[in-house]
């Protein structure tokens, strides 16, 4: 209900504001060809910052660029914040930034699990050696070999890591009361695999230039030109023209029409037709613009096209139809801040793709090694000696939790591992 009310308020405001747009909107002055573009205004700020002009001039230029932004289909200009090294624009995180944040969070999960595995794995190893050998030399030597294996696993990672820690996880089956530690290690290994797999997927997604372009266009509605260089020629042409239109460059209508003549998929046609509609709307041809927006919607019902229909119906004083479209834009509240039609780009027909691949190989290695270890330990070493205190390893922090089957103690130890990694990472990433 709130959204509908909001849409209606927006509609009423727009009814009164629209006539003014035809006079004041910079977007509407396309035909005059002498309008300063957002790119040019940014260039001015850069030059002035380089030459160290007084601050008040920069402030005036910032005001000017924000005014241009208000009358353009651009939502945010993060360049302002970076150039001035200040938070002037309140910019929401892009999908790429969210992925980066997830990578940082997953890194804490992975390293925390690695630390907990290294500790519990070492304890299992010490306990097994103490169970199997009476001679101090033999058991310490076997612990040394195991510790070298753990170090090898941590240095070489990948398959050796999962194989060695799965073997160590199964070792706790030597005693009934130690079995929960075995399952805890198994869960940590699975968490580790899931974390690594997700991190790799997110990073693949982050490294894709196409995803970067889409993410930038979805948030800001424009992107740096160098991001379009890897696109196929027609897509590049559409992206470049749409970008320029968003940045308030005058785009002659015949350039769009030339693209329409090409054999392009319907969603690309929708972008072109919508952008022609924007051009017409800006040039006071609202009724003609409406038919373009309607055609674009038929080809690909992108939210921006729907918003343009809302805006056009509002301008044509048809609030019921406008409300119909406003209701469909509940997740796009920020559109309603714009009083000009929104040009579309690749971000409106594509989504950021994250393909998560299930690491069957690693899972198979973990399950096989775990089972081998469990069977060997419970069958081959069924008869074992009464354990004796190991004078050196019993002083290892946390070993007593394992030795005395203190389950809450081991859970706290595992939690501390995650906390330690969290604090270490916090120190590393403090200045980001």
């Amino acid at each position, binding site marked *: 209900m709130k959204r509908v009310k909001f849409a209606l308020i927006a509609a009423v405001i727009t009814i009164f504001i629209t006539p003014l747009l035809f006079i004041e909107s910079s977007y509407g002055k396309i035909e005059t060809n002498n309008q300063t573009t957002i790119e040019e205004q940014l260039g001015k700020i850069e030059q002035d910052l380089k030459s160290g002009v007084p601050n008040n001039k920069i402030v005036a230029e910032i005001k000017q660029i924000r005014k241009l932004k208000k009358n353009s289909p651009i939502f945010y200009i993060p360049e302002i914040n970076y150039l001035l090294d200040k938070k002037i624009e309140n910019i929401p995180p892009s999908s790429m930034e969210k992925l980066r944040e997830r990578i940082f969070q997953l890194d804490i999960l992975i390293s925390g699990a690695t630390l907990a595995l290294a500790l519990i794995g070492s304890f299992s190893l010490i306990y097994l050696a103490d169970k199997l050998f009476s001679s101090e030399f033999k058991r310490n030597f076997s612990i040394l070999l195991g*510790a070298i294996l753990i170090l090898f696993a941590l240095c070489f990672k990948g398959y050796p890591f999962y194989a060695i820690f799965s073997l160590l996880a199964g070792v706790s089956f030597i005693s009934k009361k130690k079995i929960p530690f075995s399952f805890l290690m198994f869960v940590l290994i699975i968490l580790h695999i899931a974390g690594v797999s997700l991190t790799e997927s997110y990073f693949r997604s982050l490294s894709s230039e196409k995803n970067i372009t889409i993410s930038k266009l979805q948030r800001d509605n424009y992107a740096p030109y160098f991001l379009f260089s890897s696109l196929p020629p027609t897509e590049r042409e559409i992206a470049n023209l749409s970008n320029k239109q968003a940045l308030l460059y005058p785009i002659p209508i015949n350039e769009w029409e030339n693209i329409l003549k090409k054999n392009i998929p319907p969603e690309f046609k929708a972008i072109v037709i919508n952008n022609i509609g924007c051009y017409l709307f800006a040039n006071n041809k609202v009724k003609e613009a409406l038919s373009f927006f309607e055609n674009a919607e038929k080809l690909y019902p992108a939210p921006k096209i729907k918003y343009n229909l809302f805006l056009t119906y509002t301008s044509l004083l048809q609030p019921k139809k406008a409300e119909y479209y406003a209701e469909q834009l509940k997740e796009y509240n920020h559109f309603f801040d714009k009083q000009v039609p929104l040009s579309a780009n690749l971000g409106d027909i594509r989504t950021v793709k994250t393909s998560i691949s299930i690491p069957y190989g690693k899972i198979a290695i973990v399950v096989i090694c775990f089972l081998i270890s469990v069977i060997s330990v419970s069958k081959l070493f069924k008869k074992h000696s009464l354990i004796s205190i190991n004078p050196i390893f019993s002083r290892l922090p946390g070993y007593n939790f394992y030795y005395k089957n203190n389950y809450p103690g081991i859970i706290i130890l595992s939690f501390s591992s995650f906390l330690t990694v969290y604090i270490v990472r916090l120190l590393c990433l403090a200045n980001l």
Partner: protein
Amino acid sequence: MFSEPVKGTITDFEQFLNLLNFLGDDVLFKLNCDNDHIVFCSNEGKVILTSNGNPLTELEFKKKLTSWILSENKNITFTIIPVLENCPEGTHIEKSRVTEIIEASKFLRAIPEKLHIRILDEKNIPDTIKNLANQKISRNILINVSQISLIDLCLLENKGVIEIKKVGLSDKLAPVIAVLSAIIVIISGILAIFPFKDKILTLTIMDSLTNKIVAKEITGKYIPEKLNAMDGYFNHIIYKQGKLISPGKDRKIGTPDDITLKLPKPKSSIFVIP
């Protein structure tokens, strides 16, 4: 308390001590090791020990326990049986003494194969030990001495009356190996804290810095070579010739493990990547 006997396996000393604390006047506690067994019968805070129907003295109990603990691959089980009759005849030992013996037997395996006993306090030492002190002796000889058991040595060492020194090479090496293993375990712990996917984390950190650095390049602001941001190894990220470089694990720049990100060179004033 029980109408049926309760059986189980003893896997560690803590479990053994817990069972002993549980031992009341209404149950018999039978400890089995292969064909041998010891029966603990509690009577008003004291314990009477028997084995194969014969009473067991404290020394015999210690000797039997020693042989069980030192023999490898032995399965020690227990049975708790409800008491139907009074305890059999035998030596009465305080329950606290039995606990003390079991606590001391934890350290049995720490006694080396070849040892040297050094007396620290002559007053409380049995004559047998005095005779064996200050010479190289084998653990097996001590096992066969009739007047004392290895557990007595553990008890005396715990009280600080004697010191057991290692003589054999493998016994001397054992603690060195243990320390080495402990160091490797600690190094492993430190290594585990560092990023598992270090390249991904470092490149993601560099990605987050890109816009700030490019903005400084564009406006001609000073960019220090050593940036105020760090990678997962606590290395400062280096800015050099339009590139961001992380020195990697070895913390040295110019080595193969360096992680490098080339910064974009935008030809327009639009430069921010999401």
